[in-house]
C-alpha cells in the first residue's frame, strides 16, 4: 500500500496552490455575486504564501510539521475568514498524524475528517448554512465511510465526490452564516464560493492521491 511522506505533502500543497491560481478570478467572481468579491484573491494570497514557505523550509519535515507550518503561514498571510478556518483545519490535520513520518490511506481519511471538524468548530457553522462546511462535512463522512479497507484513491475520490455534491447543493440554500447571510432569498441560485473552493481542494487531493496510489 502506498504511504505518503513529507515531500508528498509539499507536492500536495503545491498542487493546491497552482489550482487556486488558475481558479482565482473565477472564485472571486462567484463571491462577487453574493459576497465581497475577494474569495479567490484571498485564497490565492494564502496558498501562494504556503507554497513559498514550504519550498524553502519544508525539507526533512514530517507531514504533521508541514501541516502546522502551512497553517501558521496561511493564517498570517490571509486573516479574513478563511484564514482562521483553514489554519484551524490544517492544525487539526497535523494533530491527526502527529509524530508519523509516513501516513497511509486511513490517516488521510482521518486528516480530511479532522479538517472538517476544525472548520466547523472555528466557524461555529453546521451543514445547511451555505458555507464551506457544506462541502467539508459530507466529504469527511464519505472519507470515514470508505476508510475501512479503502485504498488512498477510493477514500479521496469518495471525499471529492461528496464535497462536489455538497458544494453544488449550496446553490439552493439560503445562507445562515457569513456575509451572504444578510441576503435572504437573493443568495439562492448561487453556489457558495467557500464551498466551491473547498470542493476544488478536495478534488486536487483526489488527483494527487491517484497519482500516488498503487
Amino acid at each position, binding site marked *: 500500500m502506498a504511504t505518503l511522506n513529507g515531500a508528498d505533502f509539499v507536492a500536495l500543497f503545491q498542487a493546491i496552490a497552482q489550482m487556486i491560481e488558475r481558479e482565482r478570478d473565477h472564485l472571486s467572481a462567484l463571491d462577487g455575486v453574493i*459576497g465581497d468579491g475577494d474569495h479567490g484573491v484571498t485564497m490565492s494570497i494564502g496558498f501562494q504564501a504556503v507554497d513559498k514557505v514550504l519550498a524553502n523550509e519544508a525539507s526533512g519535515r514530517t507531514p504533521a510539521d508541514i501541516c502546522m507550518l502551512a497553517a501558521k503561514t496561511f493564517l498570517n498571510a490571509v486573516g479574513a475568514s478563511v484564514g482562521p478556518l483553514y489554519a484551524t483545519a490544517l492544525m487539526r490535520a497535523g494533530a491527526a498524524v502527529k509524530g508519523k513520518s509516513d501516513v497511509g490511506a486511513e490517516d488521510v481519511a482521518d486528516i480530511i475528517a479532522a479538517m472538517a471538524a476544525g472548520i466547523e468548530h472555528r466557524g461555529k457553522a453546521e451543514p445547511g448554512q451555505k458555507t464551506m462546511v457544506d462541502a467539508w462535512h459530507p466529504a469527511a463522512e464519505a472519507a470515514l465511510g470508505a476508510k475501512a479497507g479503502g485504498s488512498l484513491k477510493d477514500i479521496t475520490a469518495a471525499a471529492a465526490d461528496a464535497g462536489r455534491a455538497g458544494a453544488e447543493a449550496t446553490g439552493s440554500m439560503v445562507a445562515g452564516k457569513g456575509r451572504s447571510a444578510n441576503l435572504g432569498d437573493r443568495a439562492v441560485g448561487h453556489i457558495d464560493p467557500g464551498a466551491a473552493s473547498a470542493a476544488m481542494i478536495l478534488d486536487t487531493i483526489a488527483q494527487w492521491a491517484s497519482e500516488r496510489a498503487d
Partner: protein
Amino acid sequence: MSPAPKVKKLLNDPDNAVDEMLEGILLAHPDHLVMSDEHHRAIIAKHGPRPGKVGLVIGGGSGHEPTFVGFVGRGLADAAAIGNVFASPPPDPAIACAKAASGGEGVLFMYGNYAGDVMNFDMATEMLAMDDIEARTVLTTDDVAVENLERRRGVAGNFFIFKAAGAACDKMLSFDECERIARKANAHTFTMGVGLTACSLPQTRVPSFELGPEEMEIGLGIHGEPGVRKGPLDTADAVTDEIVDKIFAEMDPEPGEEVAVLVNSLGATPLMELYIVNRRLNQRLKDRDISVHASWVGPYCTSLDMSGMSITLHRLDGELTGLLDHPCDCAMFRAGQ
C-alpha cells in the same frame, strides 16, 4: 460571464498595494504614526498610548481609507491592525497593536461585525490572555440596512463610535466605563448607504458585482455586499429620503433631539453630490425638529473606487456630545481645540 474591461488603477505589483500604501502613509504622517517593531501591519499612534490609559485598538481590512489607519492618534485610537484589501487582519498584527496600546488597564478591540474579523480578533484575545493583557471586544453594528440585529455590519458610523470610545479612553476613564461608552455609542449610531457603481479589487481590476448602467443598490455594504434592493437610479432627494426614512424608523427620534451627521463618500462620489444629499438631509431633520450639532461631509469610510454614499446619524446626549467635542489629533482627522 462576459469578460469586463480592466479598471484602470495606479499600482505596482497589486500584491504589494497594502504595504506600499502603508509606507506612503507613514512617510506622510511621521508626527502621528509609527509602525510597530513587532509587526509591519500594526500602526501605532506616536502620542496615544500611555500608562494608566485603556488602550483602543481598531482594525479591519484595507480599502476603506481613511478608516481605519487615519483614525489613529491622540484622543482617538491608539493603534490599527491592518488587513489585506477587504479582509480581516490575522491575529498577529492585532496582538502587536494591543501590546503597544496597553497601558496596564486593558485594551478595547473595536471593529465592524464581520465573521472573519471576529474569528481573528478572538484568536488574538485568547493569545493576549497568555501575556496577561485583557482585551475586550465591542463590535460596531451601525448598518440599519440589515434587519437581523446580530448580523448588522459595522460601516461608516464607525467614525462616531470610535470617536466616543477614543475620547473616553483619552479621559483616562476605567475599563468598564470605556466599554460601556463604546457600546452606547454603537447603539446611538445609524447608517445606511447606496451604491451606484461597483468597486474593483487591485488584484482583479474587474467590478466585484454587477449593477446596470442606470441601476443603484440601496443598503449596499462597504465591501459591495448586496443590499436591500436594486432599483433604477433616482434623484438625490428621493434616495436621501429613502435612506432617512429607514434611519428614522429605526431610531424613532423625538422632536428637539440633537444629532451629529456624516455624509460619507464610498470613494468615487464627489463632494458636490454629497453636499446635495446633505441639503436634503438637513431639510428632513428640520422637519422633525432635530438639530445638527456637527457635520462631516466627505470620504471617511470608503470602499475602494465604489461610487455611492452613506448617511450616518449619531444620536447625541450630554455625555456623547462631550466625547464628540473632546479633542483628537490623528493622521487624517482632527477635532476639538
